[in-house]
């Protein structure tokens, strides 16, 4: 028995089957975690190799090059980039998306084993490091403190960082801005010299004094005692009084030659929250953990942690990424609900009966909820993509049910019993319902096959819609006929109120049908004119393509701005701090309604802060995090604010040599952030590439719509080097290493020992006091003791010279390069690229130097190519499905013409609304292929039916058009109105799907209007030709017969 026969016969079973699906779906929904995007597998590996003491160029030649040459042969490699800086080589391998990173890691490890022997002996083994989006911190917490500032690190470490690190899913918690306690022994060089002491001696003595040594055990009488020497300092004050030597018979104490300060680390990051000094706590998640769940747990813990802190320490939230995710998902959920409401209204207006409306509308939750089971089963999340899929599908899942219901109603009106009508009515349309679902699946299933970054996003969309379509068709063939058989009645009685309300709608719809029929009569009478006008409109719209710009992804307003500032290289941290303080207070005053929290960090990161040491840091570098109020609560968009901020920096803060204002927190993040154009200048010679980079950045500055132009190669770092004379060293019995350590111990300090207190250890550092390391002469006057104890000054052993070390050497695909990047602001990406390209063509490049394009533009080109190919594949598939359904090659061709107008519509609406053609609007365009041909199928199907019933071509077309107008307009309106909330959304993250909704609305509206006129006309032309051909054939056959008869 057929599916619909069985379900009509067994209503309880059918209902319970769907109830089960709904229960399972709701159960899955309750368990589904939420996230912003579907899981994106990492595709990047880093290979880090240390080679202590080597300069950038040595590293490049001896480490980076051999590694690159070998690693280049790893499969599926997209780009290989490297940074060779002093002591370190960092190679980044970027692979094509969609391959198992673990397998690739093993391949890389094998290659590294091969090349290890070719590396310099002193270099350390290369380390493989997996980089993923998980490295991006999920929460940044601000800490404000007054009296507790000195002990802040310990307080935070004990009372905040450790408990947070224990939260399930939290990867690492780092504290920045709170310097660690350190005991400093600041020596006075002249006193040391006077007493014939050295920093090394003092350091050794401190180390030797600060000791607890167990002395074994010994027996006294009948007892055994342990013997121990307890020499460790209980207080830092004790240090002052330890004897460090003797001079002329009297003891020299440490306090005689040095001052002991129990203070904080010297060079470290300082963090300021809303202008007040404090600290920042950075929380990173474990790989694969869910950000929202973790941050919820963290937020829940905060009040409890706050209670354990001293009263002056206050924890606040700078960035909570889950906030944005939650808001985005909430606004998308609202969109889905609005879409549901709109679809319900449309269905009711067209059907005019609440029972019929209910039967149709029930399909929506059933299909939508069923898709949650898929998400849950495959371990996916509720994210932008899956929710967009829901929103897109709402308008489409009802289509099948509408067709079934309409036919069943016809049967009932003809007099059939509802039960019989449900079975027979469904039977008649089952094939065409399945065929039209197949055309949609032909569109959405290939989305699951897209590769690259876009593939990661749209695989889920493809699966979701395909599954929802299958469920909705199953529903239309089982639940809908069952409900029809139970709920529908022959000649239902309507109340007076209903008639009063609905009759005008009914009359309007009738008038609409009549109007369309007469319009159709007119255009069918003027076929040539209609075809020319329609094709003219299509050709005209193609010209608009020029005015519609393209970009990769729309910029999203996630209320986060990240600012990276750089003073000229080598500037002191105090300068950076002062300039940033002024900038911060200016901004907080100027944008006080818009800035919620601002936080900035200055200074070099200490090595144990993983997060900070991964990003650029140094005394001259400042990084700011600004959280704006919610987009709904402010008038201006994030881009305008960022624009103003850029202007403030360039007009009022010339001291910042480089400044980047990054919308969305980071620069050039594929989705959400502002697009960047990266020009890559390839060339070996530093000076030549530097000058081309400078020229190019000037060129880019002249192009409207560019901001934040940045040259990747940093300036040559100034430094003092001591050139020792090897012969002189040899004369004094010294060597390079010994004297180098003498310098290091005096300037950087020697860690003598650890001071223990309450189970914590703090470094005791011995060094020159700060006032004795401020001039070159201080270095020149450092005393080095020879093996015979004779003092020699550094200036006697060598010269102190100022030099500039070469910057980091960057390479990509085994060539040196500099990247000049610009943020694209306010104009489409394509416009900037075209303008820049024209200028670059005019530039005279030295031989051996080439300029390539990368950044968002490269990603955009890749994705556009992928999507174009996908579009072609989908068109072919849809054609095949239709040709099979109609058993004709002509009809699908006629229907496909509606695609032309769909694309026209997309261009026209993008042009009118000022949106750009980006990945989102292209996806909208691709979806249109399936949605638009559906209208054509309905129309042509009925026209051919009329002809098979013996009507003439003309009346078949006009009657068919008239009777199919309502279903076409109804399904179109459900889809369009389902998209309206998406296209008009103003909530957080709405920028992302607005272009998609707009594209679908424009394309569908425009193509439906033209399809309703153009397709019937084209059908007439082809059908007439067909008839003519048949007649000709018949005539010829007839004549041949006559001739044959004559001959006989």
């Amino acid at each position, binding site marked *: 028995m057929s599916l619909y026969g069985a379900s009509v016969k067994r209503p309880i079973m059918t209902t319970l089957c769907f109830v089960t699906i709904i229960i399972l779906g709701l159960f899955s929904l309750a368990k589904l975690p939420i996230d912003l995007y579907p899981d994106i597998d990492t595709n990047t590996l880093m290979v880090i190799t240390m080679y202590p003491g080597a300069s950038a160029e040595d590293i490049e030649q001896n480490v980076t090059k051999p590694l690159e040459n070998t690693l280049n042969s790893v499969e599926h490699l997209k780009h290989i980039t490297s940074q060779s800086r002093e002591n370190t080589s960092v190679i980044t391998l970027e692979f094509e998306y969609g391959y198992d990173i673990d397998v690739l890691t093993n391949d890389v490890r094998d290659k590294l084993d091969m090349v290890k022997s070719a590396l310099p002996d002193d270099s350390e083994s290369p380390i493989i490091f997996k980089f993923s989006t998980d490295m991006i911190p999920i929460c940044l917490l601000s800490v404000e403190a007054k009296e507790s500032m000195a002990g802040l690190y310990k307080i935070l470490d004990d009372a905040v960082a450790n408990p947070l690190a224990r939260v399930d899913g939290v990867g690492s918690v780092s504290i920045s801005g709170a310097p660690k306690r350190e005991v400093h022994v600041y020596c006075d060089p002249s006193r040391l010299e006077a007493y014939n002491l050295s920093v090394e001696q003092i350091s050794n003595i401190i180390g030797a004094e600060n000791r607890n040594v167990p002395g074994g055990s010994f027996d006294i009488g009948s007892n055994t005692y342990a013997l121990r020497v307890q020499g460790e300092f209980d207080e830092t004050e004790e240090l002052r009084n330890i004897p460090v030597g003797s001079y002329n018979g009297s003891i020299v104490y440490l306090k005689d030659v040095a001052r002991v300060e129990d203070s904080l680390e010297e060079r470290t990051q300082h963090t300021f929250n809303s202008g007040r000094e404090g600290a920042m706590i950075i929380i990173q998640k474990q790989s694969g953990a869910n950000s929202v769940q973790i941050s919820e747990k963290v937020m829940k813990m905060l009040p409890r942690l706050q209670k354990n802190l001293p009263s002056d320490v206050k924890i606040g939230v700078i960035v909570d990424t889950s906030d944005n995710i939650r808001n985005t998902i909430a606004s998308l959920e609202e969109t889905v609900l609005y879409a549901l409401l709109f679809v319900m209204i449309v269905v009711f207006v067209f059907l005019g009966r609440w029972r019929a409306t209910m039967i149709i509308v029930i399909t929506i939750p059933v299909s939508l909820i069923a898709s949650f089971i898929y998400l849950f089963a495959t371990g996916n999340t509720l994210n932008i993509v899956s929710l967009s899929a829901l929103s897109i599908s709402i308008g489409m899942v009802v289509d099948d049910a509408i067709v079934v219901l309409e036919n069943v109603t016809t049967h009932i009106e003809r007099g059939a019993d509802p039960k019989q009508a449900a079975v*027979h009515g469904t039977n008649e*349309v089952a094939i065409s319902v399945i065929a039209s679902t197949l055309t949609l699946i032909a569109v959405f299933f290939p989305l699951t096959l897209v590769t690259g970054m876009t593939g990661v996003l749209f695989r889920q969309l493809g699966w979701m819609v395909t599954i929802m379509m299958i469920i909705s068709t199953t529903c239309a063939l089982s639940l809908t006929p069952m409900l029809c058989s139970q709920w529908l009645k022959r000649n239902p009685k309507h109340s007076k109120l209903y008639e009063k309300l609905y009759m005008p709608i009914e009359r309007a719809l009738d008038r609409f049908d009549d109007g369309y029929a007469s319009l159709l009569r007119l255009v069918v009478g003027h076929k040539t004119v209609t075809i020319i006008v329609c094709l003219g409109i299509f050709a005209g719209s193609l010209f608009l393509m020029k005015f519609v710009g393209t970009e990769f992804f729309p910029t999203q307003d996630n209320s986060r701005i990240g600012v990276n500032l750089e003073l000229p290289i080598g500037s002191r941290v105090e300068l950076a701090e002062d300039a940033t303080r002024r900038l911060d207070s200016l901004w907080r005053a100027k944008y006080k309604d818009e800035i919620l929290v601002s936080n900035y960090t200055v200074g070099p990161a200490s090595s144990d802060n993983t997060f900070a040491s991964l990003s650029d840091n140094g005394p001259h570098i400042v990084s700011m995090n600004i959280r704006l109020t919610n987009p709904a609560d402010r008038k201006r968009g994030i881009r305008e604010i960022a624009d103003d901020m850029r202007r403030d920096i360039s007009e009022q803060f010339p001291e910042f040599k480089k400044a980047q204002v990054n919308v969305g927190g980071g620069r050039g993040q594929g989705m959400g952030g502002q697009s960047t154009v990266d020009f890559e200048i390839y060339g070996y010679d530093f000076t030549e590439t530097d000058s081309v980079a400078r020229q190019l950045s000037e060129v880019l500055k002249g192009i409207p719509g560019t901001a934040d132009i940045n040259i990747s190669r940093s300036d040559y770092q100034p430094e003092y080097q001591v050139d020792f004379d090897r012969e002189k060293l040899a004369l004094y019995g010294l060597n390079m290493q010994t004297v180098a350590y003498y310098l290091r111990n005096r300037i950087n300090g020697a860690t003598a020992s650890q001071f223990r207190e309450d189970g914590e250890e703090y470094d005791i550092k011995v060094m020159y006091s700060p006032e004795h390391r401020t001039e070159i002469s201080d270095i020149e006057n450092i005393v080095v003791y020879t093996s015979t104890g004779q003092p020699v000054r550094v200036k006697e052993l060598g010269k102190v010279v100022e030099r500039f070390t070469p910057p980091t050497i960057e390479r990509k695909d085994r060539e040196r390069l500099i990247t000049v990047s610009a943020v694209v602001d306010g104009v489409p990406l394509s416009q900037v690229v075209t303008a820049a390209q024209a200028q670059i063509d005019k530039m005279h490049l030295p031989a051996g130097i080439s300029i390539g394009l990368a950044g968002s533009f490269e990603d955009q080109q890749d994705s556009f190519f992928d999507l174009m190919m996908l579009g072609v594949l989908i068109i072919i598939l849809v054609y095949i499905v239709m040709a099979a359904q109609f058993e004709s090659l002509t009809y699908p061709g006629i229907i496909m013409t509606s695609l032309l107008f769909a694309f026209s519509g997309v261009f026209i609406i993008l042009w009118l609304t000022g949106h750009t053609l980006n990945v989102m609007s292209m996806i909208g365009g691709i979806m249109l292929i399936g949605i638009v041909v559906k209208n054509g199928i309905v129309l042509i199907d009925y026209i051919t039916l009329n002809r*098979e019933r013996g009507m003439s071509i003309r009346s078949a077309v006009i009657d068919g058009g008239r009777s199919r107008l309502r279903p076409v307009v109804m399904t179109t309106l459900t889809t369009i109105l389902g998209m309206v909330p998406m296209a008009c959304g103003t909530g957080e993250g709405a920028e992302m799907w607005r272009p998609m909704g707009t594209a679908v609305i424009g394309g569908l509206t425009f193509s439906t209007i033209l399809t309703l006129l153009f397709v019937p006309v084209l059908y007439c032309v082809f059908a007439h030709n067909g008839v003519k051909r048949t007649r000709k054939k018949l005539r010829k056959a007839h004549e041949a017969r006559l001739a044959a008869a004559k001959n006989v």
Partner: protein
Amino acid sequence: MKSIFIAYDQAHHEAIIDVLDRCSCRGFTSFGTVQGRGSVKGEPHYGSHAWPSLASAIITFVDDSKTDTLLEMLHALDESKPLLGLRAFVWDVEKSI
């Protein structure tokens, strides 16, 4: 004994079995779904793309006394749903085993 051939839109099927039951006509032979069209204005029932509906046919053999009641009831059924279509034809049975 009369033989009655009833051809009708398949939607009538259950109603016709019901009529037969009410007239105590136990025996019948159903042809399942069949194709056909009416002689005057009856719509074709082909089960095709153009004419998707299908007809059914039943032949039954009843006592002469029951024929009129049965035909009346069938006529009433037809009248109630004129769009579906129902026709019955009666002829004599000469012999049976």
